[in-house]
């Protein structure tokens, strides 16, 4: 592919967008979380302090996910969903990226404080 002037223009635009995204990712990262919140269909299913190591079973009509907390990190250890994206996401340790299991409509998030303290 020859890089003509118009192609260079678009390469530049996309590079800038990519760099902005990398910045956004770095700024969003932190390890301030204290509580693990498990949501099913947007409803709070379970709330566990991040310091409570162990395995927690989330069983709903959609299926079953086993959430593991260890060393202030959280992961979905296993799930009976089809795509296994939640399991492959691996450990999360801070606020920001949640673990998603779309077939089970489940999200696992780490939040700063207990959900009850938030005034939303």
């Amino acid at each position, binding site marked *: *592919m020859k890089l*003509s002037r*118009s*192609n260079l223009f*678009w390469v530049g635009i*996309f590079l800038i*967008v*990519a760099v*902005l*995204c*990398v910045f*956004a*990712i770095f700024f*969003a990262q932190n390890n301030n979380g204290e509580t693990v919140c498990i*949501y099913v*269909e*947007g*409803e709070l299913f379970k709330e566990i302090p991040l310091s409570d190591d162990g395995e927690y079973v989330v069983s709903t009509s959609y299926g079953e996910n086993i959430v593991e907390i260890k060393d202030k990190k959280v992961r979905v250890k296993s799930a009976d969903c*089809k*795509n296994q*994206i939640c399991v*492959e*996401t*691996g450990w999360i340790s801070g606020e*920001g*990226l*949640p673990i*998603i299991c*779309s*077939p089970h*409509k*489940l*999200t696992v*998030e780490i939040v700063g404080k207990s959900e009850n303290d938030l005034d939303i």
Partner: protein
Amino acid sequence: MKTDVKKLALTGCLAGLALVIFVVEAQLPPFFIPGVKPGLSNVVVLFTIYSVGRKEAFCVLLIKVLLGSVFAGNPISLMFSICGGFFACSVMCFASCFLKDKQIWVCSVFGAVVHNLGQLVAAVFVMETTSVIAYAPYLVIAAIVTGTFTGIAAMMSVKYVKIRK
């Protein structure tokens, strides 16, 4: 109205091709980010836009998405595919109005970015939480990378595969 049989047959073939690529791709292991796929079937959709027509591209997409979820998905993945696919196809059709054959890759990147953001919108509705928006920067970067590659592949296809009209 006279039906262009050649075009109809061609659209059917392209839809079949897109479907096969879609189903095979669904079996591939994920790379880098969980859930991110290279979007190879988009090569066929792009090729259809540039070599056959925009209306046909929508037909190819519709067949790919509907049958694709029958063969390799579930009702929820169908919702994700429809959301992403139709946003992407609309944007690519619009972008193809002013992007020439040499810039198909740009069109492809637009399509990929909009596809991923469309899926994110679907995720917001499925999961009923806005926290998934945190994935947006990751998805945009992934879309730029995969969109460039599929776009270059589509560019080659349009260049070397000549359709007798």
